[in-house]
């Protein structure tokens, strides 16, 4: 079952790389003309085509592109001619850093709040929480971000509104620098994750075996820890992984707001410059992380499901 799922994930990845490749192929005219413009000299276009290997047939280019990717060679940026690997490398690690810190805060907070809201359903606490999540779900990321900037960086000057980080900074300085983007991401993701955790727990608590546990006279803690939790594990893990995937993608907008030197910022810049090789490379990286996390979610929930773990 797990192996089947992994194979499916790999297949998805291959198809997506193909789609990314084909997407560029379908461009009206070709990349060289699109970039150089209509007025470019035919010789310049020809030379450029050669550099992009556009003179070779499509399937050969696809496999050589894929082979290069596997070796970590992404080619050169069209905009400034620098190797894409250099551009992406540290930006990707910055993005991962931001996403990881946000996840480390968001996951435990969301799960604990979600469980509490489910256990004290319809209490004042639950209502407050669902009102708060309803609004954060409705707010665009940049709205949350600018409110935080207005409050914590303009009205009271505690955190920087531009999250510039570099390799010389200490961990503490880095965290101070990314505090606001991190808080933005956390707020947005916590809301989603909490809502889904709450729903998963409520669903489990309504099952007949929980009623049976109550009728056996077990105490509340035991019912929750021993009876509800092992069965809630699978759905909750799923919720977490899906939200992490969401977080990795949601990072794009937040990076732009805070001018954070991450992969998302690079992707957006390259799209507006139509720097297609960079778009391909960073898009593929985002897609891989996203698919990977979704895959992890499925595998973990298969493993943590008692019925699937102990087959007949």
């Amino acid at each position, binding site marked *: 079952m797990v192996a089947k799922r992994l194979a499916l994930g790999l297949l998805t990845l291959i198809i997506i790389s193909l789609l990314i490749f084909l997407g560029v192929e379908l461009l009206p005219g070709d990349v060289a003309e699109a970039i150089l413009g209509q007025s470019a000299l035919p010789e310049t276009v020809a030379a450029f085509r050669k550099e992009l290997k556009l003179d070779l047939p499509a399937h050969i280019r696809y496999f050589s592109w894929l082979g290069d990717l596997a070796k970590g060679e992404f080619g050169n940026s069209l905009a400034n001619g620098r190797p894409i690997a250099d551009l992406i490398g540290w930006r990707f690690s910055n993005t991962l850093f931001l996403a990881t810190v946000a996840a480390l805060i968001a996951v435990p907070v969301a799960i604990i709040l979600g469980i509490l809201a489910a256990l004290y359903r319809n209490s004042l606490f639950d209502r407050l929480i669902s009102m708060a999540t309803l609004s954060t779900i409705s707010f665009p990321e940049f709205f949350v971000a600018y409110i935080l900037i207005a409050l914590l960086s303009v009205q009271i000057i505690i955190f920087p509104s531009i999250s510039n980080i570099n390799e010389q900074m200490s961990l503490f300085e880095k965290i101070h620098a990314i505090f606001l983007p991190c808080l933005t991401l956390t707020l947005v993701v916590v809301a989603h994750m909490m809502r889904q955790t709450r729903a998963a727990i409520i669903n489990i608590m309504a099952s007949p*075996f929980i009623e049976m*546990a*109550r*009728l056996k*006279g077990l105490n509340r803690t*035991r019912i929750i820890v021993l009876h509800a939790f092992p*069965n809630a594990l699978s759905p909750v893990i799923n919720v977490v992984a899906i939200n992490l995937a969401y977080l990795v993608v949601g990072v794009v907008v937040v990076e732009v707001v805070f001018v954070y030197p991450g992969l998302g910022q690079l992707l957006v810049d390259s799209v507006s410059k139509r720097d297609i090789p960079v778009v391909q490379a960073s898009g593929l990286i985002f897609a891989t992380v996203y698919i990977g996390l979704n895959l992890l979610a499925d595998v973990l929930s298969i493993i943590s499901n*008692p019925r699937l773990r102990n087959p*007949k």
Partner: protein
Amino acid sequence: MGKILDIKNLKIEGYSNEKWVEIVHGIDLTLDKGEVLGLIGESGAGKSTIGLASMAYTRQGCRIASGSIVFDGMELFGASKETFRKIRGSRIAYVAQSAAASFNPAHRLIKQYAEAPVQHGLMDFAEAEQKAIDIYRRLLLPDPEKIGYRYPHQVSGGQLQRAMVAMAMSCQPDIIVFDEPTTALDVTTQIEVLAAIKHITEQFDMAAIYITHDLAVVAQLADRIMVLRYGNLVEEGEARTLLDNPKEAYTKDLLSVRTFRKPTDQNDHNQNIILKVQDVSASYTGKEMVLEDINLKIRRGKTVALVGESGSGKSTLARVITGLLPPLQGQIIFEGKELPPDLKSRNREHLRQMQMIYQMPDTAVNPRQKIRKIIGRPLSFYFGMDRKKRENRIIELLEMTELPEKYIERYPGELSGGEKQRICIARALAANPNLIICDEVTSALDQLVAEEILKLLQRLQNELGVSYLFITHDLATVKAISDEIVVMLQGRIVEQGEKQEILTPPHHEYTDLLLSSVPEMNPDWLDNLLAERQAAQSL
């Protein structure tokens, strides 16, 4: 003997449409030590709610409004959660209808068995393990030493149900509440569970509340019976007295249910065959056969009952006949002509002549269509009737199924289960069919309602001369309505013939098992049967 449970003037409310509505109206209930009390009633009688309330428990959306629940001298109404916790599981235990849903899928059976005694501080795990194995053995579970170490989904339905009875026994409680513990089981499996329950309550001299809709089942177990209806007590009395000599009309109705019999016509030699199933084999996967070498005939204006337990392939046969599942081999011959095997290649006329009625009237009619459209669609589809003709015919069909004319404007949601089933019958009749396939049409209905439906179907057959293929697991229904009987087991026909012929011994071995497993109103039936079977085994 002293009272172990004494409930007085119990009122329970349920939350619906934003307000609390009383659903149990002041019930008094007493239970002596070692006594088995049967609570009987149709759906909506409040019997499960009362059963749970004896543990001072209510489901989500219900609450105990007033009354007194005294267990062994302790008042439970308004008592602390701590008191409830101490009593539940250890002194009053519960056995639910569905064991598959009530066992936690994450833990082994024996761990769930041991949980209550260990948590209530009665014994340690090792001791509980030993006791569990002992009880599994007494309940005749196969491989009692090992079965406890399986997970719930690894054990069959009947065994799981017995494992739940064992779990309820784990603390040797004073009372066990059995909530329809055999309703979801086949008759032959039901016997095993009934025998287990009877055995264990007698052996440990335990008091029990047994909740069921089936009077014959409760007759085997209960010392005393309470008949409930709409949250009120109808009648209460010693089991034998009440069965022999019921006072209230409702109890009499419940007792006389299943007495309807179609008159048999001895000199009937009509050989006009409408449907012939020839050498049919079918499979869903292409490998495992669900049906093998099926041959049967249905005569015009007659009823063939197809009997079998779950997994016998009887519903699959209906799918093959209707064309939903093309057979791997064999032919369906209808009105003398071979039918194309799959639905798509049959023409409208083929489809019209063969109609179907289903088990669940709730899902068999579209809740978003008015009755006018439900019955009217076949009329315009098959006969191209215009609005006016259609309207008249719908009203005619409503009359035939004994429904008021005004129902034409209603949605199914405004009708009761039995009325919805009548709508389904009307829809089938709208096509003027020669054959109607009835798939468990009475199983989801309360017994009194089911009886009325059977009578209606019989009357329609007499008037219209339509044939029925009646698929059912319920032998009482078979006895009531059939002309011929076909018994199926694991995809094969084990026996078939005229009703008289099948119902009078000697039977085929399986038919015998099936027939003898149907509970009878006689309170000694179970004891006699078990004694007989034991004797047969020791021979």
